[in-house]
């Protein structure tokens, strides 16, 4: 790639960035012991990003013809109006290798398949489960990055992800339950956790047949690490993305402002190795850091790509991420979490007279401009006089970021992380989120009871 950097310079580019991506990925999908898909696929992609007279262009292809890619990127840069300038970064040369205990290429596909089929033996112990589906994916990916600042980065990555769905049936009622694991890890992620996860998904599927709908209204709510993590991600993380702040479309505005209760601290940490949201270097070659977003209720930081950092005259944070080489790197989260407090599960539970304990997540969404967010718990429990009473399902929770951040006072110290995927501007990237058990004093709960 080196010689093409100088080709970019010859074409008058003040910045040239070349990337290559090669991956091999395996998929095994099993539905009720029937192997629906067993596949192994490979893909390559190459890209060139240039800045010419302050304007940017990005060109990509499956063919590693960097000269043609640069020529096309130069053509595209001429269309753009805006002038972009980066604060320069120092030259580096790093090689990253994802750590694992069991290399995914050391287990052959046939054994991987057998191990998954073995999980299905558990199904017979759950009579009301009508269907069980398991999808396993692993991948080995080689990323290479080189830019005209002489930053050279390569990453040998290994990733594993699997998801299980159970469907339970009783009379005309059908309920479902889903759980997932993911991370930049090796086959140990499957070996150590899939067994436990399958049992959980099967038993919760059956449990869901007993669940009721929640009663709509405004209640105190206690959330677990899943839903609390979605809160950190949806309600706070998105509003701290510097592109939204610069576009004037975030309720979160000036650093240093008080935005929440003194007990709340929220962090976006790119350095947690192996997490699904681990970002050792972002897609613009910036080192991933630990970024404090909110510290004891005060707004402390934004999430930047190189462009937003330069525009605000701040340091980039390593949050410039893209779905793949065909997309622009924009401010995205990594592992976003509510930090531990000093309360605990029992204290929080006993403080609620009439409310809900919400667990698991079906995801969430936020409108950063108005600050309105929604997330859905997969299940939960009605709390009466500090005790869990009965199971409820699919409980929606809405609120307004700035109001809700001030209504979080009791926070536990049992922080846990979850892997997931985040969508923004049509781009999906792997992320993690997390939280300890905590309480929202007053939340709007949706339910059709």
């Amino acid at each position: 790639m080196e010689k093409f950097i100088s080709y970019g310079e010859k074409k008058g580019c003040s910045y040239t960035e070349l990337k290559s991506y090669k991956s091999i990925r395996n998929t095994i999908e099993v539905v009720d012991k029937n192997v629906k898909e067993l596949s192994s696929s490979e893909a390559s992609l190459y890209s060139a990003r240039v800045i010419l007279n302050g304007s940017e262009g990005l060109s990509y292809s499956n063919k590693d013809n960097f000269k043609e890619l640069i020529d096309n990127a130069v053509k595209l840069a001429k269309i753009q109006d805006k002038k972009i300038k980066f604060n320069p970064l120092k030259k580096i040369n790093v090689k990253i290798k994802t750590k694992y205990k069991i290399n995914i290429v050391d287990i052959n596909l046939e054994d991987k398949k057998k191990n998954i089929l073995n999980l299905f033996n558990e199904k017979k112990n759950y009579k009301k489960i009508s269907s069980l589906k398991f999808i396993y994916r692993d991948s080995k990916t080689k990323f290479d990055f080189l830019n005209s600042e002489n930053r050279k980065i390569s990453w040998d990555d290994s990733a594993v992800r699997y998801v299980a769905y159970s469907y339970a049936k009783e009379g005309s009622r059908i309920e479902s339950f889903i759980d997932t694991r993911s991370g930049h890890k090796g086959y140990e992620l499957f070996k150590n956790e899939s067994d436990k996860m399958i049992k959980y998904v099967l038993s919760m599927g059956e449990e869901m047949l007993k669940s009721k709908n929640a009663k709509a209204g405004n209640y105190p709510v206690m959330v677990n690490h899943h839903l609390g993590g979605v809160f950190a991600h949806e309600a706070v993380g998105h509003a701290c993305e510097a592109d939204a702040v610069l576009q004037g479309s975030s309720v979160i505005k000036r650093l240093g402002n008080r935005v929440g209760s003194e007990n709340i601290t929220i962090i976006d940490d790119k350095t947690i190795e192996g997490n699904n949201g681990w970002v050792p270097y972002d897609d613009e070659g910036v080192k991933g850091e630990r970024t404090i977003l909110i510290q004891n209720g005060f707004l402390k930081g934004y999430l930047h790509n190189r462009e937003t950092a330069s525009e605000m005259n701040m340091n980039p944070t390593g949050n410039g991420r893209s779905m793949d080489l065909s997309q622009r790197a924009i401010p995205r989260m990594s592992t976003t979490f509510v930090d531990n407090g000093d309360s605990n599960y029992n204290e929080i539970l006993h403080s609620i007279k009439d409310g809900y304990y919400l667990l698991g997540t079906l995801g969430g969404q936020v409108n950063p401009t108005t600050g309105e967010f929604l997330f859905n718990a997969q299940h939960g429990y009605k709390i009466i006089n500090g005790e869990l009473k009965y199971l409820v399902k699919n409980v929606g929770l809405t609120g307004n970021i700035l109001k809700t951040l001030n209504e979080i006072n009791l926070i536990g110290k049992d922080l846990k992380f979850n892997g997931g995927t985040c969508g923004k501007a049509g781009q999906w990237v792997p992320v993690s989120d997390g939280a300890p058990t905590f309480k929202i004093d007053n939340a709007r709960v949706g339910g059709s009871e």
Partner: protein
Amino acid sequence: MIEKALKYIKSLKIKDYELFFMDNNSLSILISKNKVDFVSQGKISGLGVRVFINGKLGFSSTTDNYKRCIDTAIKVAKLSEKDNKFKSFLREKGKSNLKAYSKKLLNLEIDEAKDYVKNYISLVKDTNPKVNISEGSYNKGVSNISIINSEGLNISILKASNSSSVEMIVNNDINVAVGRHEINPLDYNLGKDDIKRLLNLRNRQHIETKDMELILHPEALADIMNNTFEFAIDGENVNMKKSILHNKLGSVVFDKKINIIDDGITTGLINTTPYDNEGKVTKKNVLVKNGILKSFLYDSYNAYYIKKKSTGNCSRGFTTTPSIAPNNIVINKGSSKDIIKEVKEGIYVRSLIGTHTMDSTTGDFSLGVMEGHYIKKGEIKNAVKDCMIAGNFFKLMKDIKAMENKIEHSEGYYMPKILFNKIKVIGK
């Protein structure tokens, strides 16, 4: 690549195979703060190979090396388990002359795409200088698909579409998100309607928690149906008895005013295509007639297993194996000229937050209202703030008061605004 791949797979004497080749060209123009912010363009092409050997299926895809891909598919098939549901790759003798693209869009150059974006931005700024486009994008895609299988199928499909999405903002705290997706070049003049929508959202008010009538705009209803109805009519979910409608064929499932068609062949609709993505000639499938469930949607795998024919609803790319998806979902129009006038007290919901989080299996939802208006005695009073609606899609569809006499498009759904008798609104 596909001809070489065909030659190679024949030389290996593989009896049952399917080759899927796709070539995508994309252009993307991004907008930020009223300016063209970023331009990208590229080409991705690749091959997906499925083989069936000794009762076992194997799949592999590649962007580089077709020989390695075919070898891998064969190797993988041998490692797999017997698949008793698989009967054969698609058997289809029919041909279609339908065009899935407009020539005008196919030939639209980068400069014209840029003019569309610039004209849209100027229109917004000229109409109301207080309104800003915080972010947006214009995307054009052209794809060329070729499919060959061992049952004698050999077809190709050319498709072109373009889409735009824009977020506009006023007073720094009110925004509106607008999306368009069509097979004809987009019309920037529609920007005037977008501004009107945004300005109508000023003066947002809290409303009381209570049951009231509900109008869903096609945008909100399509979002809900995408996460519930599509799951319920998916032939695989029906075969697996995961669909709530699996045993309801011939029964009344919706209000008798409701007719729903999956339409793959009407020219001008966004997902109209001569063939689906395994080569089946598309058609119109009547799903619901006068509220009675008439059919589900199938690809060949799930149809052949229960001795039916594919309905032309296979969806896939070269990196994935087939799944089932509707073509265009069309719901009949009603007779109401202005449906808002028929509401005593209710909420008109244009867009929702979090529809992807709803329970596909049961149809239960509790969702945030992104863009909604409170209606009293047939008139819109004000936009609503911080509120949610909760209910069940399948129950809602049984209790319809009226349907408007105009069809609107949202993401492959063509339908009128629909007025439902009762929804739970959670406000103050």
